[in-house]
């Protein structure tokens, strides 16, 4: 009795599709290898073509096109594991985030050697006379290649110490950074031909192979470097009274350069790059780290992708570099007052000033800075972490959500006063007062970051299971807010659920309970997954009432914490 066989077939097909779709949506929340510790983003790929990005275009695009706000919905970070952590990847390696580094590790940072070899002359391979910072590319007698940068004439140690200190911090956070060494040179240590001095092992071959460095002059013409060009650069930079000029020697990164990465989208020629950069937690959280160190120059142009490995078998590794514009340094001068406080173009304050005939004044113009030439403009009293800004909008920073900020603040919190002082000492600032000031300011800014972000979210962390399943199994954790002194005490409301990993459904295992101690008994239940929803009650911190949901994989004799979700 099929009167309308065609209609029926279509309906059947539709039903099947619906069934299929609904089934496909019920993907398992937790997969067998969750939580993932390392992102397998190093699949061998062919070497991509180098990319040249324009810094002017980057500024215009992010200021006016405002990439960050183009999509209405801001999704949660995509490259995190089920605990909300960033797995190790070609972008990031958990260092301070996973365990507290030792002082030795912190001070050593990314350094693999002890800087350029000073037992012989440095052969100049290239000269950069213009741009933000003048400098050289040199090869030392060990055949290592370094990029050399200087201090501004009136501010000895400003750029060099800043670069070293910031590099150690960014390495400790987990980013890939270059080895930046503080070194000293004399003018006569620089040669433009191997014939001018000892050039190490295989010297004859080097002499034969060496092509004299060229130099793009002010007319844009490429011509061989002369000693006059070098003298000219030395006139523009700070030189010590003893003839020794402090420099930053940045060791060439391993691999083949592929250009900068953007803070949005993915590299279309890198199959390993599947998470839009604006949705990477380590790039969103970079805003917090940059705020701490006042790295206002955190933009595409200060990043570098390298192809690491044999051709066809390598992968793209992503680096941050050029930390000359951090702390109180603006690379070639002291940091501007605006740095960290306002974008280069920001309509709100501009209109406010225009409409009030300039009577309304930007508060940051009146901030007092100490008179330390080696420090520049860096302070911690006026600083407010959530209001800090880079030079112009950064799509990843703009999309930072509270979970991203919490992740970063948790890492910042790991730095003790002692660690901060140790890292600051690596800058070898001669003026002891200046060095102490930098450390004090970093401590002050760290505390502000921790206090602000840990007050915006329920700051429970470090969840661990202790005891034996079926008898004394307990879930223990730490309240980072209490540890940071944001409140005297807290009460924890919690409720247990069975969790269905296929259907994502919950089934209550009892009423809401509360405890003063951060340790709950785990119910003796045979469900494969359990979930506990926790709220912290503290009159001093109302935001701590936001829920934290902790998932436990319960299908073995050794249950494990497999997921953490936070309400933000």
């Amino acid at each position, binding site marked *: 009795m099929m009167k309308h066989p065609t209609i029926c077939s279509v309906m059947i097909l539709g039903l099947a599709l619906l069934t299929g779709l609904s089934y496909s949506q019920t993907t398992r929340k937790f997969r067998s290898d*969750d939580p993932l510790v390392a992102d397998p983003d190093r699949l061998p790929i062919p070497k991509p073509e180098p990319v040249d990005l*324009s810094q002017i275009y980057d500024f215009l695009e992010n200021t006016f096109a405002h990439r960050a706000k183009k999509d209405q919905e801001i999704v949660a970070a995509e490259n995190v594991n089920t605990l909300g952590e960033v797995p190790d990847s070609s972008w990031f390696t958990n260092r301070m985030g996973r365990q507290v580094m030792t002082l030795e590790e912190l001070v050593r940072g990314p350094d693999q050697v002890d800087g350029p070899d000073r037992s012989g002359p440095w052969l100049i391979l290239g000269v950069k006379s213009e741009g933000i910072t003048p400098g050289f590319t040199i090869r030392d007698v060990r055949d290592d290649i370094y990029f050399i940068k200087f201090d501004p004439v009136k501010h000895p140690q400003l750029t060099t110490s800043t670069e070293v200190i910031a590099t150690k911090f960014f390495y400790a956070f987990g980013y890939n950074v270059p080895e930046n060494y503080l070194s000293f040179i004399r003018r006569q240590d620089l040669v433009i031909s191997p014939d001018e001095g000892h050039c190490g092992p295989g010297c004859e071959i080097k002499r034969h192979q060496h092509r004299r460095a060229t130099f793009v002059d002010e007319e844009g013409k490429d011509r061989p470097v002369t000693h006059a060009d070098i003298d000219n650069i030395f006139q523009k930079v700070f030189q010590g009274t003893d003839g020794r000029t402090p420099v930053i020697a940045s060791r060439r990164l391993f691999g083949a350069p592929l250009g900068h990465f953007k803070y949005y989208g993915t590299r279309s020629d*890198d*199959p390993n790059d599947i998470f839009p950069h604006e949705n990477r937690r380590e790039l969103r959280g970079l805003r917090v780290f940059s705020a701490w160190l006042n790295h206002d120059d955190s933009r595409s142009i200060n990043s570098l992708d390298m192809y690491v490995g044999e051709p066809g078998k390598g992968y793209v590794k992503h680096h941050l570099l050029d930390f000359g514009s951090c702390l109180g340094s603006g690379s070639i001068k002291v940091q501007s007052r605006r740095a960290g406080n306002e974008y280069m173009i920001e309509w709100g304050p501009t209109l406010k000033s225009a409409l009030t005939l*300039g009577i309304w004044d930007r508060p940051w113009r009146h901030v007092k800075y100490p008179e330390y030439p080696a420090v520049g403009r860096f302070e911690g009293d006026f600083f407010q972490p959530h209001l800090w800004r880079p030079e112009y909008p950064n799509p990843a920073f703009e999309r930072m959500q509270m979970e991203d900020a919490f992740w970063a603040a948790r890492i910042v919190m790991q730095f003790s006063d002692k660690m901060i002082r140790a890292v600051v000492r690596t800058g070898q600032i001669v003026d002891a007062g200046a060095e102490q000031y930098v450390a004090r300011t970093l401590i002050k800014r760290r505390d502000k970051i921790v206090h602000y972000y840990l007050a915006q979210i329920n700051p429970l962390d470090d969840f661990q299971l202790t005891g034996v399943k079926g008898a004394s199994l307990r879930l223990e954790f730490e309240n980072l807010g209490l540890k940071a002194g944001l409140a005297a005490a807290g009460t924890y409301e919690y409720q247990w659920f069975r969790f269905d990993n296929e259907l994502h459904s919950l089934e209550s295992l009892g009423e809401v309970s509360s405890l003063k101690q951060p340790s709950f008994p785990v119910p003796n239940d045979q469900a494969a997954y359990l979930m506990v929803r926790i709220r912290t009650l503290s009159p001093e911190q109302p935001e701590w009432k936001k829920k934290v949901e902790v998932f436990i994989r319960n299908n073995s004799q050794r249950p494990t914490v497999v997921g953490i979700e936070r309400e933000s």
Partner: protein
Amino acid sequence: MTRNTVKKRQRIRWDLLRPARPLAMILSLAFISAPAIGQEKPPASPPEEEQKTVASTTEPIKKPQSRHEHWRRQRLGKMGRLEPYQPGFVERNLVMMEKSERPGFMDLNFWGFYPRIQIISRGSGLGFGTRFWKPDIKGGRLDVHGSAFYSTRGYEFYDLQIGKIPHRGKQLPLRSWKGDDVYELGDIDRSAFSRFKLYASFRYRHLPQEDFFGLGPQARLQDHSSFLLQDASYEIVAGYQFSPSMALTLSGGLLQFSIGRGENEDIPTTQELFDEPTAPGLTRQPDFTHFTSQLLFDFRDEPGNPHRGAMFAVAFSRFDDRGSEEFHFHRFAFDARGFLPLGSHQRVLALRALTIVDEAASGNRVPFYLQESLGGSHTFRGFDSFRFRGEKVILFQAEYRWEAAPALELVLFSDAGTVADAGSRLELSNLEADYGFGFRLKTFRSTFFRLDLARSREITRTLIRFSTSF
């Protein structure tokens, strides 16, 4: 459509579907076993090794159980869609510029010729042309600069300088467009590498629509006339910069002038409205020898974008006509500019006082075309260019400048001044005045765009310029 009808249409005839149940089950099962849409796509085109693996198996692609595999499959899927980054036209050209493969916009030149758009003189309209610049020839001892411009209103400008010209690196030397500025004071390049300058200069101008309203403060708007001015100068210029805040410049040479009928057809020619007594030099233009010395004291924090400090300039000139005893005179000029921050670097009160006094020898006069004037984008902004001419000039300017943003400056301004004719005194009680509002775009070092809206008792003017007011 009734409610019943709707219900009927919505109701599914399950009895009709009964024979098709097996088909539905098969389809459903097939769909369930397929990878989920949008989540675990099979690789579109896996790499070679993967293709072999995929091709060699007949098993259906299973949903990845691990996150590791899930992400890996996404990456393999992308492997078949790789494409290099393609910057757009703007970005591509900016990159080339930044990498010096192409010079910056302002450095764009063809064998030393720099295309430019500039104002030749007050009222000239936009001038199109080129500057020529070859610095540091023969080991830095010789520089050559020249320019040629033609404007929308038929103005022409040609000049050539050879010698040691103040400049910084390969950058084009600063210049003062005589005729646009009231006086060439305050234009010494403090950033020049060399302290010493010595060069020969030649200049020729053809200005076919110069405005003339008469001499003295009583000059009437309805006497607006136009004349043709052609002039040439042959000079030697020498100078020395004693310190960043003090410089001395000496110049001397020959000046030639020719006056003709103005080409502005909307107004009468000067010859029609004026004669030799009311416009001295109208019928005969002798050559002049001249000598000028000027001393500059500059304490501004940033000369092109000052926020505090002051500048004082004083100049003395002597003009002697050749072949007659009618137009011998000397000129004294004083220009003072002060910049006071008002409680903040963001707010600046800029003040200027300028006076120029010509003293003709006994029985002599100052040719009208050499008398200084007020009116135009740098002096009396609410009046026509050259509105007031006289042997004596005094001008006061005040600007309240506030930076709404670091690169954006807004300005409230007012100008007041007057002129005096031969034998008269400057009447400070009878100053003309204007006021207005300005908008400037600037860098840390200089203003590169200025839009001033000015109003006086006579007219309202909109001025667009590419330099600061003072």
